[in-house]
């Protein structure tokens, strides 16, 4: 018998559980249902799951507050389920410790793709992979070296730092604020123009077609995502 990762789904809508439970079961997971934030937090504390889906619009608690409480004792992957047009809440949740988000309504394929990325990352964490390969790219995080088609690409220290933060994210979205804080420091969280320019330069140097980036992908208004393989997160 193989190991089935336990997935806690905290959502007040019965319809969501109705299709998510069989879908997760069929994909080899062990889903646990919670219909309120209180119920979800209790389940999270009693028997920590391998990953959590958290709806931001719960009736008994503000989504941000629920996330904050969960993060106080749970370090595993949390994926936010958010409604379209709630950009601000989504970004706040990502900055507040959520690992990724899926917009409602979603297809099961999209949801499972996000989940797989985070679980894979979790299984390899603790022993960071020093060399990440993504298509033609080879990023050596320890030696701070990048190769494209086997040839070394020269990056400035800032560019490498930015790339490293994206690559270490392991295909999850990294917000503007997180990138700016990590690369330029907390004083520059609003200097988005630095980020735009540096991302442009990275794409020029690393992407086969900088106009159609295959690896450094823009999430408009939210942040960036580093994809190992083009086409994995088709929506």
């Amino acid at each position, binding site marked *: 018998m193989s190991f089935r990762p336990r997935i806690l789904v905290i959502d007040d809508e019965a319809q969501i559980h109705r299709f998510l439970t069989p879908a997760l079961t069929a994909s080899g997971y062990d889903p646990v249902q919670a219909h309120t934030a209180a119920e979800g937090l209790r389940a999270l504390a009693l028997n920590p799951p391998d990953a959590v889906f958290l709806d931001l619009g719960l009736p008994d608690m503000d989504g941000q507050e629920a996330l904050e409480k969960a993060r106080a004792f749970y370090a595993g992957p949390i994926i936010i389920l958010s409604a*379209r*047009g709630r*950009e601000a809440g989504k970004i706040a949740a990502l900055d507040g410790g959520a690992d990724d988000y899926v917009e409602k*309504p979603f*297809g099961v394929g999209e949801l499972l793709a996000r989940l797989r990325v985070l679980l894979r990352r979790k299984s390899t964490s603790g022993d960071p992979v020093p060399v990440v390969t993504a298509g033609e790219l080879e990023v050596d995080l320890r030696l701070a070296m990048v190769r494209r088609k086997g040839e070394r690409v020269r990056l400035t220290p800032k560019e490498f730092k930015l790339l490293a933060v994206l690559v270490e994210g392991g295909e999850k979205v990294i917000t503007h604020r997180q990138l700016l804080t990590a690369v330029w420091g907390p004083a520059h969280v609003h200097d*988005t*123009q630095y980020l*735009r*320019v540096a*991302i*442009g330069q990275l794409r020029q140097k690393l992407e086969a077609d900088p*106009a*159609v*980036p295959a690896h450094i*992908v*823009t*999430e*408009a*208004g939210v942040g960036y995502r580093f994809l190992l393989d083009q086409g994995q997160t*088709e*929506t």
Partner: protein
Amino acid sequence: MSNIPTSHVARPGRTPLTQTTWRYVGGLGLVVAGAAAALAAGPELAGANLAMVFLLCVLVSAVTFGLGPALASALLAALTYNFFFLEPHYTFRITHPADLVTFLVFFAVALATGWLAGRARDNARRVAGHANATALLLEASRALARTSAPDEAAQVLADQIAAATGGRAIVLLNGDDGLRLAGAPPGLSALDAASLEAAHRTWADTGTAEVADPARAWSFAPLDGVQARVGVVGLRTTAPGDGSDRPDLIGALLEQGGVVIERALLAAAASENAALRRADQLRTGLLTAISHDFRTPLAAILGSATTLSDYGDDLKPGVRRDLLQSIQQDAQQLNKHIGALLDMSQLEGGALRPKQDWTEVREIIGSALRRLRSRLAGHRIARDFASSLSLIKADPTLLEQALLNILDNAATWAPQGSAIRIAAHEDARNVLVSIEDEGPGIPPDQLHAVFDRFHRLSPAGSGGLGLGLSITRGFIEAMGGRVAAVSPLTAAGGTRFVISLPKVVETPRGLL
């Protein structure tokens, strides 16, 4: 302005009688002072010199106090001259015939001096008063012309009347439940019941409020526009001032203010009507959209789902897959509709606050194309991007949605296998994005309307709500940009949408 009843508006300032009395006292006092000075000077001052002193007094009194006091001064001067300085002294009799001539000549000269100078002074005062009134009126009409809302105009009128009279003024306009205070001096926010009652009597023309004490009660005058009465003006005088030709001035102010307020009221009513009409149009459009465009995909979903649940086992796998796909596609269609309605309600509700941030336009085009990848799979995408492009301040989410709507349109109209050309360039002021398709193009008579809400080129069936392009325009304009459509591009058709977004231009300091 004679038809404006202002008689019951209290005249500001001291009553004319006391003012006139004081002027006469002043004029005569001058002569008395002159006589006293002459007596004190003694016999050295005599004859012609003495006459000069009195004439000077008459002249000064004429220039200072006007015609009436001047003539009175002349008479007093002649009598005083006779009484004290013509033989025999201390009588009004004149013994020497020569002295009689002197007296008569002196009296005539004093009268003439007083009359001429006094008249000149009175005329000058009148002209100055008129000029002052004209300036006040001009200022009032300028201030009133700058107003657009009725209450704003009412406040300006109250201020101007107060300034013209040196008192306090209020303007009441007709509201939903009777008169309401629209313009008032600072600190006054409500009227007492008695004043309001008086105001209503004036409004209804059922008697003007006779005011016992203008310093304590408001006196009211009706405020009429060209077509109808628009309100009531109340006046209360507190400080004395020159009331000479103020009734005319107040009348003119009332006339001007009435017309301006009436115009503002009509304009406000018109814009309210336009807003209501617009909201009504939107509601009708939404109802049509919901009843038709939402029902069609819902019918397909319901039909497919019931078919699957009732006959699932009897269906061939291909048919089953097809029905499932239909459910999926129609649900996505519904989701798109809901997204459009949300965007529209954001635009209509005035809740749209673009989160302007440094944005790389090519990047947003890329992410829009990525999101539409499967929908655009059948089209060739050709890009023509400038190798370097200025960053602009824009809301990336709104820009992406604006682009998505245009691209989605292109995917709907342009035939499979045709090219969609996307270019991004910049000129001195703007970053420009153009999206060109090889679809049938837009008929010339419809080109101007493609950005209108619920405007659809085909009656139905293409699946759009007719909101996409209007949302695009709304979002782009909210970010300070412009969007335009050009069609047809060739004889075969084709449409080009051009979005221009302003670059952040910093004015060099030297030019400021």
